[in-house]
């Protein structure tokens, strides 16, 4: 069985991802300029200037860490861009800040209690930054010399000559090292890395200067440049992990499997306390940094009274993320009680929150959004058809018009038409009726 040369270097592996075209997949950010002023159409966001400006300010405060443990509420009628703004904030924060997104109804599960689900969501949104430091020897192999003892038994001895562009040196090899080298099939011309602490050998590839050595090379061969500088370097890598991940790793021996199966179950509070004290200790010693992230709860009116009291308490914790909530209800009953309150959220929690209101879109903003969605879904729309859709979204709802785009595009393609015309849009209108057209007796 042919062994494939293993390249175990910490590189970013890019898999070709099949990106699902979701409702908000066209959003790349909040579309603000350097002065936090929103541009009319930018990064997928259209209009809604006040709300975007407010979100920009919140975003800056998140970046500076001034808002940990506070709550923000985005409220507005359905179809006014609340989730879009949250998506924009997530994209704008980037990969360094943990961003957890959940719907209010997700906390109701048979496997764990509501408070456990909320606690896990909270801890998924707090990151811990740690660093590891290793000494590595990186160079191009000039020569590997292994001497087997004449008697057949006994340890092998060897010498390994490594070089970089600036220096060259010889290493004496012990038995274990020789075994690893043979296993990695390191030959002259290969560029390898040896971890000084663990003795692990990784092959980075083959040196360019040795590319012409053979007439044909295998499919897995990569060519890299001969390393520069010192042979023995110090490598520092920074990782950001979430508190939840650390919880799971520690709560059972096979914890890492649970991370993928999703069946984390209830994590004991003793484990969490241990983790908290450990992380606090690291913080004191300067070995870790807390990165408060963002927890976005959509449809927050689905949470009941118990959850809200839990949220009140949890926000007071010294390690709490930023809580962004969104709802489209006006004055409704708080779930679990018979009291009515704005947005279905108790007044005491509302008091702690900063509220961003979204307004319904105007006609030209809707037209722009529809245009962006057409581009995103790869649909060529005629000017008249676009006008029809815009009028439709004004009469009924923006989402209805967006959904019609997909359907109309499909029909147009089936008919081998290059563009979607008004005719097709009207046909689709009749096929898929908007709820505002429905009149039940």
């Amino acid at each position, binding site marked *: 069985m042919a062994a494939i040369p293993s390249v175990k270097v910490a590189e970013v592996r890019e898999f070709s991802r099949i990106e699902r075209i979701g409702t908000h997949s066209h959003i790349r950010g909040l579309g603000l300029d350097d002065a936090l002023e929103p541009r009319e159409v930018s990064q997928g966001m259209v209009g809604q200037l006040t709300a975007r400006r407010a979100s920009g300010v919140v975003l800056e405060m998140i970046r500076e860490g001034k808002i940990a443990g506070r709550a923000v509420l985005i409220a507005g009628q359905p179809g006014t861009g609340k989730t879009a703004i949250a998506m924009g904030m997530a994209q704008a924060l980037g990969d360094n800040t943990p961003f957890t997104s959940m719907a209010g109804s997700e906390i109701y599960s048979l496997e764990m209690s509501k408070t456990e689900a909320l606690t896990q969501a909270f801890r998924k949104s707090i990151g811990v930054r740690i660093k590891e430091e290793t000494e590595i020897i990186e160079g191009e192999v000039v020569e590997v010399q292994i001497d087997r003892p004449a008697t057949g038994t006994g340890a092998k001895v060897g010498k390994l000559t490594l070089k970089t562009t600036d*220096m060259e040196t010889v290493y004496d090899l012990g038995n274990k090292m020789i075994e690893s080298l043979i296993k990695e099939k390191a030959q002259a011309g290969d560029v390898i890395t040896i971890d000084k602490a663990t003795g692990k050998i990784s092959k980075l590839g083959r040196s360019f200067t040795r590319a012409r050595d053979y007439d044909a090379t295998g499919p897995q061969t990569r060519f890299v440049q001969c390393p520069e500088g010192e042979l023995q370097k110090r490598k520092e890598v920074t*990782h*950001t992990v979430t508190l939840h991940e650390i919880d799971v790793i520690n709560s059972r021996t096979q914890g890492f499997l649970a991370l993928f199966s999703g069946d984390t179950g209830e994590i004991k509070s003793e484990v969490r306390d241990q983790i908290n004290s450990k992380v606090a200790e690291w913080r004191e010693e300067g*070995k870790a940094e807390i990165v408060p992230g963002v927890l976005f709860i959509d449809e927050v009116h689905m949470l009941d009274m118990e959850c809200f009291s839990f949220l009140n308490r949890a926000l007071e914790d010294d390690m709490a993320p930023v809580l962004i909530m969104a709802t489209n209800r006006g004055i409704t009953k708080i779930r679990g009680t018979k009291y009515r309150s704005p947005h279905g959220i108790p007044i005491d929690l509302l008091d702690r929150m900063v509220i961003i209101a979204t307004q319904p879109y105007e006609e030209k903003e809707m037209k722009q959004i529809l245009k962006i969605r057409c581009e995103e879904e790869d649909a060529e729309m005629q000017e008249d058809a676009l006008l029809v859709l815009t009028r439709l979204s004004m009469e009924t709802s923006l989402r209805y018009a967006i959904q019609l785009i997909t359907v109309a595009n499909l029909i147009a393609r089936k008919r081998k038409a290059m563009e979607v015309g008004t005719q097709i849009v009207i046909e689709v209108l009749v096929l898929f009726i908007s709820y505002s057209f429905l009149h039940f007796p």
Partner: protein
Amino acid sequence: MDIEKTQQFLIQTETAAQEILIIKDELVALDFRRQKTREAFRALKNDMIPGEKAWMSVGNMFVKTRTLKAQNLLEREMKELDKDISDLHNKLKEQVKMLRDLEGKPELKGFDLQPITKEADIIMKALSK
């Protein structure tokens, strides 16, 4: 006015960058010495009989000493070199931080953290499985 400011800025950043390049070159030179000292140490250990005397080059001079003494000297030198390289690394980090400050770039995340290699290794291994 602007030209003077730009000039000042350029002088500052260029000096800082030059410092960094000098330190990097120093690191390479020190590592070179470290590797050569190590090679010498190993050569003494492997090829020499403990009673014999060995030739050793100290700076510009060649000195004949007992093998044991030579080994001790080399070991001490390696320790010193390790320490020097460590110090230089810290100095390099400071200089890089200064340069990034001057250039107005945002701070590198986790730059000043103390490393916790053992625990970090366990965590990353568990997460990547």
